[in-house]
């Protein structure tokens, strides 16, 4: 589930539960979740680059 979809569903649920005060907190959490996922992507890219470099050196 992407973060935008998550946020839409979470805020709709908060509204349905009578907790509109949760919305700004959920927006803050959404930013943190996006950053967490971006960190994971960055780690994967870093690992892929390291692997590619190792493969390039491996033939020597």
């Amino acid at each position, binding site marked *: 589930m992407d973060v935008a979809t998550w946020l839409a569903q979470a805020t709709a649920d908060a509204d349905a539960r009578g907790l509109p005060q949760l919305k700004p*907190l959920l927006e803050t*959490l959404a930013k*943190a*979740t996006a*950053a*967490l*996922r971006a960190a*994971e992507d960055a*780690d994967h890219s870093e690992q892929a680059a390291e692997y590619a470099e190792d493969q390039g050196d491996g033939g020597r």
Partner: protein
Amino acid sequence: MVDVRPATLVEAARLIEARQLSPVDLAKGCLARISERNEHLRAFIAVTAEAALADAARAEKEIAAGTYRGALHGVPVSVKDLVDMAGLPTTAGSNVPARPATHDAPVVANLRRAGAVIVGKTNLHEFAFGTTGDETAFGAIRNPHDPTRSAGGSSSGAAVSLVEGMCYGAVGTDTGGSIRIPAAACGVTGLKPTSGEISADGVVPLSTTLDHVGPLANSVSDAALLYYAMLDADAPAERLPAPSPAPLWLGVPEPYFLDLLDADVRRLFAGARGALERGGHAVSTVAIAHAERTADVYLHISLPEAACYHAPLLRDHADKYAPGVRLRLEMGGYVLAEDYLRAMQQRTRLRRAVDRALEGLDALLLPALAIPAPPLGASSIDVDGKTQPVRAMMLRLTQLFNITGHPAIAIPCGRGADGLPRAIQLVGHRGSTERLLQVALAVERQIQQQ
């Protein structure tokens, strides 16, 4: 017997062992100070005066008969009201109904076996889910240095109880900084040991991955004595570690940790660093890879774990929580399992990053709290001309080491122009809390010589 008010646990222990100070008189003095100041400061939720005096009398009798159990014998201590004490409700600072605990938590049992005299249960940020001590069912805890200010949290009452001489040691808990933050805000010492070292059984959980139990005290030596007693009550009486001999190798982690600091925190931290360098210690700059991910990782571990524990309580007693605490707990229920697992994976990376930063060093050196104790009720604060959220600023320098489990200690390093305390923090190698205490003793000594 000498009519004295010792400044530290070490001094009290020495006088008690020498039979120059009566544990009963010491307890009476602490209880009198609680009686005088607690209504204003709200450090304690429950004061166990009768039991404390009985325990003190028993300690006095044992010592007179030649049975001395060690440094904690006959010494008054306080316990955060998140920790079970048999026969008392563990309120967790909340109006949510609490049953009386049937057993002492192991940490309390260990302190009792060491002969400690427990004077009461201290006030805290509700369910330990906050850094300011102003969301509690028992009245916002006031900072003794300025009663309009927060005492820090969540172990707010624990820190205040020490400053005011209401006890000589305090049991706290630390999930994102809740021992070190109030220690820094109130000008006392606070130790978060290595993860898992001191049992968290019988302690109301906030986030089981991040929760730690540890002592607050008036000095590093005092903290060490409490730490050993909390760990293992059968430890030999003479467990005071010796300070590390010079030179120490210390690393200041940059960037991130020094990026956003109150001006006096920056000045006093620089002063402490300079004092250490003049004292012959080596202080270098190190980097902790991906430190900027700390807050996001912390949120995605602490929120769902807290929400999980509180789900049944929220179902039945939502209206009894402080509104801010309730909303943060509700928020936790929305974190997806995949993002919790992502955060746990990042935790492994961050742990390795801190291990790497510590290679070749005795400890990391950084400020403990980025801002002075904030005004009670404040949700934002000005730092370097920019408005920042109080909660994020309070947690900024401490929460990483809850994620990674490294031991960390906050030590006072002076007062700002506003009269409020500031503190440094030392972070040691995982599994080496005793070594960290040795480093801290040497650092404390050097800072006090400034």
